[in-house]
């Protein structure tokens, strides 16, 4: 990204402008691009969900609006825009208006550090992984604010339950991501992907048993953090009592909806980057060139699509967990296993260091 900005500043068209301005314009342009891409993708994930759900349920799903129904999200968006914007009279107005923005921010901001291809990362930060975990946690106060601002006892209780689930599952999420950080020796996502280049056994999911188990823990914790089935009891119980986003109508509701789906995409991409080799296709090929990096992007996209399909598949196959079982699963199953994986990964790195050679380096994760 830095190189691209330098190139841009040096090119003839923008040579006259001050460097800072060019940098800012470039950054804004990149952010807009990523935002548009993420929003479009979120809309299409909604389409994918509805088609896949339809097929699994022996029916078709939306296929009228646009080719194969791909423009359905535009129709839905227009419909939601046209709805009346109702704010409850007793609601805490600033909080009410701010909550969707914060949830949206949490879901979209983390796209900045995801490496879409070689060098195709808007912000190549050395604490990329940590930043993703931190930014996705911003959703939590947003959910609390949404429930609180609705001024309904049941909205608050419902949002508290959801927040408890989200926060609890961030622990196994972070700890299993730590396994990758241990194996990779870095928190920089581009470097993590770089170390998974080459053959398929370089992928962290296949580098020893701890990466394998950590992959499943990470994915499950991500599902729970996203409040997707089978962990969506707080949302379903909100059929009985009001959930946190009941009082939101029209476009504000669409923002929550969009945030949920883009968080899905984010977690799928991060899982692919951490465990499934990112933009490397599983056999040694040079994807660092200006054309190659876009092929790498397509590879990452394919992996993300597969993981999204899995999320959708799981949602429409399984019944819901009860809330106490959800917590049991987090604290008594996923957390101990993820801690064990971290310890195991650390041992694996030490063993790899001691063994040395190519195999040793493979064990170490480098």
């Amino acid at each position, binding site marked *: 990204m830095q190189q691209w900005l330098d190139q841009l500043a040096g090119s003839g068209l923008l040579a006259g402008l001050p460097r800072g301005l060019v940098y800012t314009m470039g950054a804004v342009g990149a952010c807009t691009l990523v935002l548009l891409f993420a929003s479009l993708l979120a809309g299409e994930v909604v389409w994918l969900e509805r088609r896949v759900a339809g097929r699994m349920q022996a029916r078709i799903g939306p296929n009228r609006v646009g080719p194969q129904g791909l423009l359905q999200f535009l129709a839905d968006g227009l419909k939601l825009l046209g709805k009346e914007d109702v704010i409850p009279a007793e609601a805490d107005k600033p909080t009410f208006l701010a909550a969707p923005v914060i949830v949206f921010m949490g879901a979209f901001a983390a796209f900045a550090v995801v490496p879409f291809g070689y060098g195709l990362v808007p912000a190549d930060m050395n604490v990329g992984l940590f930043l993703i975990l931190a930014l996705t946690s911003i959703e939590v106060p947003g959910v609390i604010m949404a429930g609180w601002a609705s001024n309904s006892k049941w909205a608050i209780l419902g949002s508290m339950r959801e927040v408890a689930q989200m926060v609890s599952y961030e622990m196994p999420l972070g700890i299993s991501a730590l396994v990758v950080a241990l194996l990779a020796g870095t928190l920089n996502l581009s470097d993590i992907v770089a170390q998974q280049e080459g053959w398929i056994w370089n992928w962290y999911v296949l580098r020893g048993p701890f990466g394998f188990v950590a992959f499943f823990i990470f994915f499950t914790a991500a599902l729970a953090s996203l409040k997707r089935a089978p962990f969506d009891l707080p949302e379903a119980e909100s*059929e009985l009592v009001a959930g946190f986003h009941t009082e939101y109508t029209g476009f504000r509701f669409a923002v929550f909806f969009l945030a949920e789906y883009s968080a899905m995409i984010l977690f799928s991409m991060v899982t692919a980057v951490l465990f499934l080799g990112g933009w490397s296709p599983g056999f040694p090929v040079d994807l660092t060139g200006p054309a190659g990096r876009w092929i790498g992007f397509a590879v990452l996209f394919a992996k993300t699509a597969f993981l999204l399909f899995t999320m959708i598949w799981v949602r429409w196959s399984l019944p819901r967990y*009860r809330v106490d079982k959800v917590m049991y699963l987090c604290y008594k199953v996923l957390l101990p296993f993820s801690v064990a994986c971290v310890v195991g990964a650390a041992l694996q790195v030490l063993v790899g260091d001691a063994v040395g050679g190519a195999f040793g380096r493979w064990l170490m994760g480098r």
Partner: protein
Amino acid sequence: MSEPTRPTIPAARPPSLVSGGEPHHASVTPVGGVAEVHEQQPLVGQDLRTEELVFNMGPQHPATHGVLRVVIKSDGEFVQGLQPHIGNLHRCCEKIGESVPYYQWIPYVDRMDYLAAMCNEHIACMAVEKAAGIEVPERAEYCRVIVAEVQRILSHLFAMGVYGLDLGAFTPFLHQFREREKGLDLLDHISGGRLLYHYVRIGGVKRDFTQEWLDELEAFLAAVEQRLPEYNTLLLSNHIFQQRTAGVGVIDRSACVRWGVTGPALRAAGVDFDVRRDAPYGVYDRFEFAVPHGHSGIAGVVGDCFQRHWVRTQEVEQSLRIVRQALKQMPQGPVMGKVPKSLKPVAGEVYVRGENPRGELAVYMVTQGEDKAWRARCRGPSFSNIAVITETAKGTLLADLVAAIGSLDIVLGEVDR
């Protein structure tokens, strides 16, 4: 001679929010769909409890059972008491039974348990036939058994699918409805209606089976038989489903018998009783079929939600058996007996009970020699089945209440009539 003045309903008095007391005294006014919550002062001191909340579930809620309103008193997670309020679907079926001739009343009986209409008609027609001494030809009896068992299969498919939906499994619901569509088309072709038929008439059935219909029936039975293991895999064998239903909503034998719970719920509590086998009506005594009942060999506790669901899946298999036997045994002959043009049974009474998919539907009919019944009292099985949760749901988690109510498989049409 002055006209007797008709009573007028007095002006409504404002509903009162009762402080504490029994939930069924509390009139909790729904405000914008969410109940106004009435709180008690939290107790401070040694026994620091969370507040007790009285809130409303229904009468409209996404769990599809119908217009049932349950007022729940809970302290946060645990249900301390609940009171179902029924009567939202009361359509005066019994009063109509006293006001119109018998043959006109039969279609109203369909609408009581609208998911088991053929079975309802069967029982009601049996009551009238017994009262009037009308004999039903043998072929008609077999036709009745076949459509009743097909209806049982359809009703259980619905119940199992919707139960999955209550628990969050969206897909088995649609798969089972795919088979249900075939069955509804089947019953449509023989009677003209998909859900409410007026096919079983006093004295027999309306129309005989054609060979085409029998072929369609075979195809339907084969389709259900093929798909049944799939449904069991999706729900019964699913670990999450078992966690949600095993040991949940236990209604033991004593509670069942005291409350008058019948049908799959009674059998899941371990009672080996089926009206079709133990007090057979029609030609049910000519078939061989098993009566599944709850026992400790399968997952869960005897009388819990899982076993109720399991009993239903087994009953579908047994119904397939019965239909196949009936098809083999069916004789040729007329399908409608001799029914007098104006049906005026001699003064008398009759009590008929039959095994509906939801339990034992009973009709107590008092005749007085007129063309209308003097009293047509219907017992809907769901009436007693839903009453039992007043006792058994105390102390359960709020999340388990939905599972418990769903597993009882109630239809508000026969609760309220």
